[in-house]
């Protein structure tokens, strides 16, 4: 909840400097599907422009960031070019990128492998069965890759899944854990402490340092977490050591 004051006074998008490390274009003060889509599309626009002072670029939940050394390059010229790019079209109406992938990831919901399913369901006001249906049938978009290497933030679940982060941190959830808070999922590439609730177990690793494709996911991809039984899950775990965790893929139009 941004305060009313902020929401009504601020205009979007905003272009700001980030330390001496670059410039950021932010499309909204709150996470929304159009703002996320705008950030992904704007990143493609920035990359296509191939401005030579830009070292690298990425999209976050609602922003596009351009890394450049502001101790070498003054920010004003790039800010002017960014403003022109912003004004060149309605980015909130931009389509998703082409060449996106749908990932179907076998997932064990609940059990002692994902012990907070019941707690999360209760906070969302759902039975465990309803919760599994919601969590496993909603096609979740990769909103951004970040925090840890390859780690997707996925959204979004129905309103009633707007459950808060825990006040206490869970000291350790294992690699491949599917966790939820604020209508989103994260899928952790390695064991980590977290304030999000652990609702599913997968053998899908979003960071595979020894693979030819160390970061399999891209912003705009979709993921569906297909429920499997404990027996099926153990079978996948023991047979697929690639980090893919038995996931099936198809190309999206």
């Amino acid at each position: 909840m941004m305060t009313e004051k902020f929401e009504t006074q601020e205009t979007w998008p905003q272009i700001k400097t980030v330390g001496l490390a670059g410039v950021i274009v932010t499309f909204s003060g709150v996470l929304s599907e159009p703002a996320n889509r705008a950030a992904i599309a704007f990143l493609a626009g920035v990359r296509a422009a191939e401005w030579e002072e830009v070292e690298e670029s990425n999209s976050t939940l609602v922003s596009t960031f351009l890394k450049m050394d502001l101790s070498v390059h003054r920010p004003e010229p790039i800010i002017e070019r960014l403003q022109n790019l912003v004004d060149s079209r309605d980015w909130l109406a931009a389509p998703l990128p082409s060449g996106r992938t749908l990932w179907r990831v076998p997932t064990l919901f609940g059990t002692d492998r994902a012990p907070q399913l019941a707690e999360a369901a209760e906070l969302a006001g759902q039975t465990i069965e309803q919760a599994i249906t919601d969590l496993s049938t909603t096609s979740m978009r990769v909103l951004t890759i970040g925090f840890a290497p390859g780690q997707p933030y996925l959204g979004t679940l129905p309103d009633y899944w707007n459950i808060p982060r825990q006040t206490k941190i869970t000291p350790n959830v294992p690699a491949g854990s599917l966790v939820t808070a604020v209508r989103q999922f994260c899928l952790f590439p390695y064991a980590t402490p977290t304030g999000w609730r652990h609702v599913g177990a997968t053998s899908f690793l979003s960071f595979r340092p020894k693979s030819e494709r160390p970061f399999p996911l891209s912003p705009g991809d979709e993921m569906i977490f297909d429920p499997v039984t404990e027996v099926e899950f153990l079978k996948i775990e023991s047979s697929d050591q690639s980090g893919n965790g038995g996931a099936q893929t198809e190309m999206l139009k």
Partner: protein
Amino acid sequence: MNRTLIVRSIGPAAAVQDLGRTGFMSAGLTRGGASDPAALHEGAALLGQRLSCAVLEMAGIGGVFEATSDIRIALTGAVMDATIDGATVQWNASHLLSACSVLKIGAARRGNFGYLHVGGGFATPSYLGTQGCHMSAGLGLLIAEGDILPVGSDASTDTGFYVVPEQRLDGGKICFVRSMQSDKFEDSTMTRFTKTEFRRDPRGNRQGIRMDFDGEGFQSGGQLNIVSEVTIAGDIQITGDGTPFVLMHECQTTGGYPRIGTILPCDLNKISQAPIGSSLKFELVTLEEGAAIQARASAVLSGLTKSIKPLIRDVTTIQDLLSYQLISGAISAKNDPLDEG
């Protein structure tokens, strides 16, 4: 003969480092790399080699190393006691470590991160394109006793140079600029922040370091309502209870806590090297001033090659004093052969 360095003993957090990996921000991987990049510039200048040569970073404590062939070394960063075959050698300088000689590096006397550079650089494996260890991402391993570190080939034989490093081992004044979320903080909070004397807290790692202080916290207005956003090394993040954490080179790529500002890269080295409990004060500079300060610091680093000087040998540090001809021949007091060493 294989060019290697045998690790006879080593401190608990030593790793091969370089300037980190770029280009992976969109994949969620921050640059990482050496905690004190200025020390890498100094070592490269002392050995007259490429800045990209991999080095050994030693956190707090050094180690004992034996060379299997003649290897040029340089020692930079946190000041540690060092000896070669028992004779003291100077820090911030380059030396020859002869085959079978033993280099001992003790605990840090000033600063936190000491660096051992070798002529040719360490020839360890690359992970995602470069050799630097990124602990948080699980790329690379800590160095252990018994490890044999391969050393690259070295075209030069020049040693015996020293460099006067930029002051950065004792905390002090840290310059920062406003960043994208600074306007979420009240002016009075920003003023109070710049007037507060902080201490480097023991709680810290390669991702972030806590700043200890007395008095009220530094919360922003919309503290809990910020959408997770890009984080970069040097960001001063204010956590829920109002405590500043400085994000370091292995920080995550995004974060949900507001940032009051961002430390200049040249001053982030001071945070890395600040001993626990040392005093730190943050000075807000404009983007233009910050850019000028950083540009000057970068110019100093790129000019280091020209500012290295030959070591003047001290009789007490000459390893094989008895082998020198000290009495025969004509020795002029004004032309002491030892000065030419």
